[in-house]
């Protein structure tokens, strides 16, 4: 082969390589799926750290956050019994809240759901690892075994708390939600009830996820044609409010707003709360301890991702809960047994908070009350936090 022929052949090969690289692209859904993973599937320790960090940053940035939301010690001062639930859902929301959903109010009944499933929490002690191996450096969280000591104050005078039960949403439920938004069914990809298209976004709807536990949710992925929201003097929360109102997605439940504006996108999180008669609002948290509800991610005032709880219209019933002493005892017993050569650190739990967690259970899943205990300690010269979640419902009313 002559030199000019060889050169021509190499040039042809270069053009083929250019074409090959330009036409090699991932499958169509990969882009949306990865973006979703990036937004929602960070490692649990990081999510937990981010969540608490974002929450406390949000508290600093949003003066209207009720002080009860950051109370270090849960102090429930009014003793109430099951009969007191007659007031459930009739107001009681804070300045940033609405009351319990109308559906929950309508469906409230004096009966119970029978024995409810016991929550399973993430972040259980990793018995076989040395303490330094189970402390997450970025979040300051400690997930290892510990000798737990309670030094806080938990005055719990309520004896019951509401349990919420919802029917697993169907494709029909998802389609109705999408239709109300003006989105059209495109397909039903694996893991989702549906994927829908609108003029300037893609909507995906997912049912309950058993593991890791996740509530039924919607995800709006903005296309590049999604316009920025221009409103003079508006901050991230105002812009998120406008977007949600424009799409009839404003929360119909109690919430507190936290804003994380330290990065791009700016995150506006509407953290769902459950009203507990005689106690006040209790945050909904995921298996890692993160508050959640609806999140609006903004980049240059343009919504890029909106994700949140799919409305499920839950039923509600009161359940007897454990005493403060029993809750503390359960927390202390959950420290785990260190079997490594390094002894487990002694940790003083100083704070406790009543929260709600999702408990997936097939056709019907539950939001159940639990206690979140926490305390910080020094590990290798650094301050780390140990958190412990224990079920609040009386053990006799739970399945093992």
């Amino acid at each position, binding site marked *: 082969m002559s030199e000019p022929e060889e050169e021509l*052949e*190499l040039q042809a*090969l*270069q053009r*083929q*390589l*250019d*074409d*090959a*690289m*330009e*036409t*090699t*692209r*991932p*499958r169509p859904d*990969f*882009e949306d799926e*990865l*973006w979703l*993973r*990036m937004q929602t599937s*960070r490692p649990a320790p990081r999510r937990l750290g981010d969540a608490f960090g974002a929450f406390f940053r949000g508290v600093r940035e949003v003066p209207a956050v009720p002080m009860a939301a950051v109370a270090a010690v849960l102090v429930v001062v009014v003793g109430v019994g099951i009969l007191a639930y007659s007031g459930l859902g009739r107001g009681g929301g804070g300045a940033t809240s609405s009351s319990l959903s109308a559906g929950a109010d309508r469906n409230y009944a004096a009966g119970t759901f029978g024995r409810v499933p016991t929550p399973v929490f993430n972040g259980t002690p990793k018995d076989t690892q040395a303490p330094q191996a189970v402390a997450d450096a970025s979040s300051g969280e400690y997930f290892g075994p510990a000798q737990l000591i309670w030094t806080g104050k938990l005055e719990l005078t309520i004896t019951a708390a509401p349990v919420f039960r919802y029917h697993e949403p169907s494709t029909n439920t998802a389609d109705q939600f999408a239709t109300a938004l003006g989105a059209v069914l495109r397909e039903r990809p694996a893991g989702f009830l549906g994927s829908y298209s609108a003029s300037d976004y893609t909507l995906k709807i997912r049912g309950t996820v058993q593991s890791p536990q996740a509530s039924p949710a919607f995800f709006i992925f903005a296309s*590049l044609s999604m316009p920025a929201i221009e409103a003079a003097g508006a901050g991230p929360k105002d812009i998120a409010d406008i977007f949600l109102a424009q799409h009839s997605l404003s929360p119909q439940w109690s919430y507190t707003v936290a804003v994380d504006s*330290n*990065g*791009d*996108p700016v995150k506006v999180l509407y953290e769902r709360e459950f009203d507990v008669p005689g106690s006040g609002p209790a945050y909904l948290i995921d298996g890692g301890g993160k508050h959640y509800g609806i999140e609006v991610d903004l*980049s*240059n005032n343009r919504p*890029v991702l909106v994700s949140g709880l799919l409305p499920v219209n839950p039923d509600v019933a009161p359940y007897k809960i454990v005493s403060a002493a029993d809750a503390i005892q359960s927390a202390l017993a959950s420290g785990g047994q260190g079997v490594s050569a390094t002894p487990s650190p002694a940790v003083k739990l100083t704070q406790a908070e009543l929260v709600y967690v999702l408990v997936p259970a097939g056709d019907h899943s539950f939001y159940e009350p639990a206690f979140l205990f926490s305390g910080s300690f020094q590990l290798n010269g650094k301050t780390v936090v140990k958190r412990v979640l224990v079920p609040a419902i009386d053990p006799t009313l739970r399945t093992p």
Partner: protein
Amino acid sequence: MLADRPPFEDLYREYLGRIYAYIRAQVGTSADAEDITAQVFMNAYQAYARFEARNTTPSAWLFRIARNATLDHFRAHGRRERLRRTIEHQPMAEEDPAAEAEDRIQYRALLHQVAQLPERQRDAISLRHSGLSFDEVGRLMGCSEDAAKMLYHRALKALREAVHKEGN
């Protein structure tokens, strides 16, 4: 957000396809390419707060992350596993051939040949045909612009030989 740093989503939308193609040209399966691409953008997303546009371009920054992730992938699986995957690789088996245009199939076979080149040759071709300049290729591969050009041309000739051999 810094004025000289575009929103991460813009980078994501602009570079996802190119980064995927760069990785896909080197690994045996679409599934591996998706896994590595996902890892690249997860890492980039978490590190974006530390990205400084005055020190490097977004393109070079992302391709550096992608290159490291791809090298990590090969280290993790080992050469034996890579060879096995390459030998077992069935370019036509992943998707319905009827849905593929003929030239697309031809290109996939070409990238299959790229994936079998020695590591640095494969890297030079993949980076260059991902739209990077020889200067950028050289920086990523730790050599001069001239050395990157020489490496690339050697790789191109090696690829031509491989294509000829495959055709015979």
